[in-house]
């Protein structure tokens, strides 16, 4: 187990290094630098700026500097938001994004899984049809449309929620719902279908034949196996949600981290783009690792060290 963990962590670091490297060189392949403006800056200023940010050094040395910075968790200064380092930006944006994302993720799990189970147990009943109708709708409507509708209905028409910002606790409701939409639908659909599949299996029939109470059959025997595909999805989803959805933060004017990434992309703020990519990837990889560990906890048949997956 420890050996497996160490191996996985080393692989994760290696993967991150590859991601950082590729991102670095990809961004440097773009013609024009962060100081290219529509109104050209004087040469002297560009030279001074390049010197200040070490952009005049050979590319390889810049790369080494960057990796060195990464290893000490220093992601460098932002080229566009003056006086801010990427660390500052993450520090200012991440808590908000993580809070909204955390609430959304928790609600997805708390609502999505039970709804999926109920829907599976009452297959082909009105409840099931209603849930599946909502879930299908949720998967097909993009979150920016959900977000806009929330603002339109609850902020503009009814005036119940603030239309932007999170200075008021009510302001969290909109972003959280918009973030949840797709994943909540997906999780309940996934739970339902995998639950149905498990319930058809022989061991469940055996358990029932042995006279075990229905509650025990479902929660003790069926649910654990049914949750495996759900966990596979939920892990990376949490990473995606916690690090902020660009769209939702843009629409609700939430001062989170996703906004900075989009700004960085449009401003060609290299360090911000790279910083966000690395942060996001690290989180994503971490969640995948957690998922793999959760597998063996839920289903001891899945052995982590060696063995076929």
């Amino acid at each position, binding site marked *: 187990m420890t050996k497996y963990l160490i191996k996985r962590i080393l692989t994760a670091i290696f*993967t991150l290094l590859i991601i950082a490297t590729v991102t670095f060189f990809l961004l440097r392949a773009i013609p024009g630098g962060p100081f290219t403006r529509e109104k050209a800056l004087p040469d002297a200023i560009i030279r001074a700026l390049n010197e200040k940010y070490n952009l005049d050094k050979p590319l390889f040395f810049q790369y080494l500097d960057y990796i060195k910075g990464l290893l000490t968790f220093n992601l460098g200064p932002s080229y566009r938001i003056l006086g801010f380092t990427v660390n500052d930006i993450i520090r200012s944006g991440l808590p908000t994004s993580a809070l909204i994302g955390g609430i959304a993720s928790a609600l997805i799990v708390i609502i999505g899984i039970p709804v999926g189970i109920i829907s599976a147990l009452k*297959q082909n009943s009105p409840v099931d049809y209603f849930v599946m109708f909502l879930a299908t709708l949720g998967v097909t409507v993009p979150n920016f449309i959900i977000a806009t509708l929330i603002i339109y209905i609850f902020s503009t028409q009814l005036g119940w929620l603030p239309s932007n910002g999170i200075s008021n606790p009510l302001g969290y409701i909109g972003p959280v719902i918009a973030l949840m939409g797709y994943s909540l639908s997906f999780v309940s659909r996934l739970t339902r279908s995998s639950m149905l599949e498990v319930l058809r299996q022989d061991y469940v029939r055996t358990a029932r034949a042995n006279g075990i109470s229905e509650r025990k059959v479902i929660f003790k025997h069926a649910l654990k196996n049914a949750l495996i595909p759900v966990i596979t999805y939920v892990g990376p989803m949490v990473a995606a949600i916690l690090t902020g959805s660009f769209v939702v933060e843009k629409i609700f004017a939430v*001062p989170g981290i996703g906004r900075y990434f989009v700004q960085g992309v449009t401003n060609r703020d290299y360090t911000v783009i790279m910083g966000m990519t690395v942060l996001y990837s690290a989180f994503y990889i971490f969640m995948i690792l957690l998922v793999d560990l959760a597998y063996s906890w839920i289903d001891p048949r899945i052995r982590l060290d060696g063995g076929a997956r």
Partner: protein
Amino acid sequence: MADLNFKKVAKEDKQDIEQTRRSLTYWQDVWRRLKNNKSSMVGLVGVIFIVLLAVVGPWLTPYDYSDQQSDFSNLPPRLDIREVGDKTFYVTRVYRLLELQDGRVVDRFADLDTNVVDKINHHAKEIILPINVETTQTYALPSSVTLGADEYYSEKWGIALGDTTYSFGDDAVEVVYIHPDSPFQNVEFEGSPYDVNESGYFAELTLVDNYGEANAEDAAYDFDHGAENLITALEDATFVEEIRFYGEEVIVDYSYGLMNDNMVPDGYEDVNLTIEYQGEENKYVTDTIHNKIFLLGSDTQGRDILTRVLYGARISLIVALIATVVNFIIGVTYGAVAGYLGGNWDNFMMRVVDIINSIPLVLWVILLMVVLREVVIDIEIAGRTYVIFRGTSGLGTIAIALGTVYWVAMARLVRGQVIGLKEQEFVLAARTIGVSNAKIISRHLIPNALGPIIVSMAMMIPAAVFTEAFLSFIGLGVSAPQASLGTLANNALSGFQSYPYKLFFPAAMIALMMLAFNFLGDGLRDALDPRLRKG
């Protein structure tokens, strides 16, 4: 001895007993299963319908997707008309008077002349400017701003304007703001998000969003007495417009809707504007009719939304299709080669897939888009430069970005299939008669794995539509004047409060596409691979 009188049985009778049934090929069986599945048939019909609309639709409408008729901008699909005398008028939200006949615009009149409204709009839009324009920079703006009060009030219009200085770090910023109760806030703020702070005033949204860089032109505005000047101008202003046409006079009075409540004369409390024509005065909307020039309305530049939505659907479908094909080519080749070669090759290739799989793909697409849009690859041969690849923000780039990122799942799936198939006898047979490896993969292995591949491709299309809409939404999509559904939705967002129909139709189209393709994909999965069938 019994007379054994055997008789020959007719051929038809014999067959009847044998109960033969025409044997079905795999694909016939798939079609039979698909036909029996109601939701997938709905999906199939929907997909065919949408594809037809996207392919043929843009040619059937009388406009081109880039045709601009700026006189007729922002017309909703249903028009609130006012009938006065023998004429029918429509007043747009930006105070433009149009004459209608049978739902078509026959004449247009000049915009409101003494345009104080415009003046306010102009300043409201450019409220926030760094004073020191020489050092242009982007501000990381706070979510709310506390404003001091130094305000001017016009009783007649019930509007309060204020000047104040706010400092962002080292830079002082002059802000003009408008009281939230003022009628003018509805005039062309385009529904962008604005921020109301504790004292109940709002500063323009650019504040919240990131104003970007100011240019010298903006700085020309006299900040010192901005609010005072505006109020003085307002006190003198009337919002009456007199138009003459065909020798007759139309008088439009916009004042009532803008006035402060206690200044409105009796009988005009809920009147927005009046139109006087041929001695008759109209106070209210008399009827609501369909817009016959633009069935689904027009956008900010006076382009037909119906045409734009159909054309956007075409762009979205093309992007999804190319992305799926690219994804198919890379994924299937990679997976089949890895699976067929096996051993160390397989190990290495699958480790690469593992690494790619642990990268958040949406992020990767964004990065690729950023790079691909601008990169130019060229080679120099004998002093001349040949451009191999020139990045654009067109269709191709986005399709390539999507296709080259999402092949991983496909590769895994094909590898799994190939590993199972390659041990079977028919492959051995092919190998013994000396068929080359490439041919075994392309002629024997891939066709046998086609079922799951098709399912995966069918699911890729809606995913690509979704991702493309998202990319367009954050401004990385196809470039203007082309527009995908995501671009349309994004453009509609800024004026959403005033013109919800602009968002509604592209959004509905996206949802319909997703629904149809998802239904079809689910049905195909059940039909092609019954083992994968889910509840």
